[in-house]
Structure formats: structure tokens, C-alpha cells
């Protein structure tokens, strides 16, 4: 299929004796949200880190838009179009919201590491940063120091930074973590909009959000994939019911 933006095959990662991720294969298509769910310790975070390159796999491969990226570093993967958010907010707290987005836009610019010229005055980069802030819905806070944003605002900023790098695939690691109900609704709406033209791999604990957003679901337990399919298929899967979801969730 031509529109597979991310494809991982048979990923395995061991930490000492513990197998954190075992023989996991997963695809993300353009214009879809593929959610990965599973109980704590299922290996979801390790999987995200394997995909983004922060951890190298023991076995298996990662392809971005058909290109083998298994041996590539996180920054090489980012430049190849992979953007990720972290479970724990990871921004530059001491500079303005706009400066955060501007740095992100700069990272993908051909002038990213130029030795001369004013970093803050590149019209192309600034426009890209402004567009990303608008898309993430925090353009109004552009001049606020990032550390003064609310928790929800910082989560939005992190999404905006990822968008500013013009990614073709987004890895969102628990974007709703720590959010109140109202903030969560906004974020769900935002993530839902983001799928247009991009592929999204979403790790999330909030089941309402997952079933509201996901086009496809992969369920992990103990490092293994135990089910993959549409939300309806996964809901009906008896193994998932037993291993993870529990009757009361549904």
C-alpha cells in the first residue's frame, strides 16, 4: 500500500532478562489514527521509543514512508518526517510559546544550522511556526513564556511544536495525561483534526478518547500484540476482554 507512512516489523527489545516488546509489528496509514492501548507495563512506551529511535531494537525494523530507518537516530527520523510528543511535557519552558514553535520549524528548515543571520527573523520559519500555533489552537498565547501556560496549554504547545516540523507521521504519547475533562475534550477535537494528510500513532489510557478517535486499534499486553483491528473488532475480541478491557470498561 502506497500510503503507509510508518511500518514496524517484528520489533523486539529486551532490558536485561525482561522482554519489554516482543515481536511487535504495526502499520500506520495516512489519514488515520492508529491507537495502541494496553495495561501499564504492556510495552507501549518502549514501542514509541523504538519507533522514534530513542531506543534501538534488539530485532526488527522500522520503515518511514518506505525507507529503512532502523539504524537511524531520533534526529534523523525527525528530519525524515517523524514527530513525537512525550508523556511528560517536553518543551523549552524559558522562552515564549512562539519561540518554541519557531525552534521546531527551524529544525526542518534547510537553514536549520546556518552560522549567520538572525534566527528570529526568517519569514518562512516564522510563518510556519505561526501556522502550527494556529492549527494547535494556541496562537493567542504566542507571546506568553511557555512555563506560564496551563498544563493543557503546554500539551497543546507540544503538539504545535511537532506540527511545526511538518511531520508526515505523529507519535502522540498520552496527549491527554493529566488533563481535566474540558481540556481533554479540546485535545480530542485537536487530535481528530490532525489526521488529515498525516498518519497518527496514539498511545492513550483514556478509553473514551481512544474509542472516539481511533480508526484502528492495537492492543498490547506483556510486550505482545494480542489484537489488532477496528474499534468494533477489538471490542468484540474475547482475548482482549479477558486480558485487558474487563467487562466494566465496555
Amino acid at each position, binding site marked *: 500500500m502506497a500510503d503507509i507512512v510508518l511500518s514496524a516489523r517484528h520489533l523486539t527489545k529486551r532490558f536485561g532478562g525482561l522482554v519489554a516488546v516482543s515481536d511487535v509489528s504495526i502499520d500506520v496509514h495516512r489519514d488515520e489514527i492508529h491507537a495502541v492501548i494496553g495495561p501499564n507495563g504492556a510495552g507501549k512506551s518502549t514501542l514509541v521509543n523504538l519507533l522514534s529511535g530513542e531506543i534501538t531494537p534488539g530485532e526488527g525494523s522500522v520503515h518511514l514512508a518506505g525507507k529503512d530507518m532502523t539504524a537511524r537516530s531520533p534526529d534523523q527520523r525527525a528530519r525524515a518526517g517523524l514527530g513525537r510528543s512525550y508523556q511528560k511535557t*517536553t518543551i*523549552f519552558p524559558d*522562552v515564549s510559546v512562539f519561540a518554541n514553535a519557531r525552534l521546531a520549524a527551524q529544525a526542518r528548515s534547510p537553514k536549520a*544550522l*546556518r552560522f*549567520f543571520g538572525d*534566527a528570529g527573523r526568517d519569514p518562512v520559519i516564522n510563518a510556519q511556526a505561526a501556522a502550527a500555533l494556529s492549527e494547535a489552537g494556541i496562537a493567542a498565547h504566542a507571546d506568553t513564556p511557555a512555563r506560564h501556560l496551563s498544563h493543557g496549554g503546554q500539551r497543546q504547545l507540544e503538539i504545535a511544536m511537532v506540527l511545526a516540523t511538518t511531520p508526515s507521521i505523529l507519535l502522540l504519547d498520552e496527549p491527554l495525561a493529566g488533563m481535566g475533562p474540558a481540556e481533554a475534550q479540546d485535545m480530542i477535537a485537536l487530535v481528530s483534526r490532525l489526521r488529515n494528510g498525516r498518519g497518527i500513532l496514539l498511545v492513550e489510557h483514556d478509553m473514551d478518547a481512544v474509542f472516539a478517535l481511533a480508526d484502528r486499534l492495537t492492543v498490547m499486553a506483556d510486550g505482545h500484540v494480542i489484537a489488532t483491528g477496528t474499534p468494533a473488532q477489538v471490542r468484540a475480541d474475547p482475548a482482549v476482554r479477558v486480558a485487558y478491557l474487563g467487562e466494566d470498561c465496555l
Partner: protein
Amino acid sequence: MTPPRALTRSLLAALLMAALLLPMIAPTYYLQFFAKAMLLAIVAASLNLVVGFGGMVSLCHGAFFGLAGYVLALASPSSSGASLWTSLPLALLVVAIAAALVGALALRTRGIYFIMATLAFGEMFFYFFHDTRVANGSDGIYIYFEPEIVIAGWRLVDLGNKTSFYYVALASLLLAIIVISTLVRSPFGAALMAARDNEQRARSLGFPVFRIRLTAFVLAAVLAGIAGYFSASQFGFVAPQTLGWHVSATLLIMVVLGGMKSVLGPVFGAFVLLGLEEILKSNIEHWKLIEGVIVIALVFMLPGGLQHLAQLAFSDRRAPAGQPGSGASRAGRQHHG
């Protein structure tokens, strides 16, 4: 809360004028002292590119300073001066290669490891010149003739002339300040500071953190090399102590004393520390004791350096609000606060 920009500018312009006119009034001794201080100010300012803007605490910067001097010494013929056109590029090339090797290894490590690895690598250069006969071992080596700056048989500058040398040092310092300021404001500088403030985020945005840091490390070493080259020419002598880790530690004191958040902070730090040493040395036998106490006091009472003190002095006057979101050059000023 910084001093008003116009005031800062006029102060700096006045300082520059004073520096340009100094040779007309100052005795030779002071000219030599200021030339020496300006060269060390280059080294301190370049170190701040690594420490302040790059967030890497390096303890081998003095080695690059000293290494350039050694290259000049070894490249100087015994009966005449070396040509600056060949010996300076050679010195800087050697320094760049050394810094690239040390940096490539040391930057594999982080935090305390990086400090220790740079300290150890710096000492490797010390012991290389101390223990081998390559450059006369622990006795050091003399440079009997200053490098020649000659174009088509015409001597452009006589480095042996104290006034000429003073202006060469001043020009080098201005050049270094311009280079570092440009770097800090550039996209490269923004990326360097981004890597300092949040390495993980910088990398996941697509910044090649290792390459950025290594580049800054090598560029800073080359700037230190320029100073080291002229410093060796000024004193006509290099010894292993020139590249020992005490030099590197003293440079760090200059950086912190002046303030790491600006390009000029370490320049002033260098002048203040050297001036202080000069005064203490001539008045107190055990001046190093005082210096040690001052360093300890600096850590606890003035962690932002003299720059912070200057800011406090102006804290009642409202500076015009900086252009909001005007990029990461502000990141450096707001970090470590």
C-alpha cells in the same frame, strides 16, 4: 531588568574609544597587561560559547589555548620569525583537529562524565609536552622571534612593537566578539541553546545535537587558538603549564565571574579577574588564598556573575520590553536564572 539598551551601547562605545586611545597615555607595562588580558578575554568568551550557550562544562579549553602556542613555537625557525600566513593557519588547523578528536570522544558522555573526560584529555596534552622531548619537555620552549606579518616584502605589522601588538590583540578581541555574537544570534546558536535547554526535545525535533555541540566545541577551540598563538608570541615562551587544567579552571572562573548569559560577560570577567590578581599579587604574599575565598564567595553570593550585579543596579529602571518571542537568543539570557 537589564540596563537600558542606549546606555549599554554608549558605555560600550566609550570603552572602545578608551581602548583605542589607551596606547597614547598608558605606559608600556599597562599596554602589555591589557594586551594579555584581551587575549585571555578571547579565550574566556570562546569558552562561554561551550559552557554558557552550549551547556557543556569543559575543563580542557586551556589545552587548546596552549596548543596553538606550542605549534607556533615548533613552527618558528631558530634564526628568524615564522610567517604568520603559514604558522597561524597551521596552529589553528592543529587545534581544530585536536578539538574535533577530543570533542568527538568527550561528547559521547554527559554531565560529570563530560567534565572528567575533558579534564583528563586536557591533561593528556599537558603530559605529552611535559614528558616527551618533542618541545623540550618540562622546561618549555622559547620563541626568539615574533611571527612575521609580511606582504610582498613589506612588513605590515611588527608584533615586537608593544603598541602594534596591543592593536593586534584588540582587533582579535573585537573579531572574536563579533564572531561569537553572530553565532549566538544565528540559527546555529538557537539550535545550540535548544540542545542545552532540552536535549531530548531538540533531538526529537530533528536537531543533530552531537554535531551541533561538536561544531561549537571546535569553533570555540579555534578562537582560543588565535589567542594562544598571539599570547605565545607576546611572551616568547611556552611551557606545559600553558595548557594545564589550572588554566582551564581559571578561564571558567572568568566566565562565571563575568556572567554566562551574554557574549561580553566573560570578556569583563577576564579583565576583572586579571586586574584583581594584579592588585592582589603586588600587595599580598598569600594572594591565592584571597582569590580562593573570592571564588567560593562567587559561587554562593553571585552565581549570575557581575552581569547580574549590573542588572540589579538597574532593577529600579524599567527596560523597554524586549520584542516578545524574538527567538532563542533570549533563551540564553533567561536560562540558569
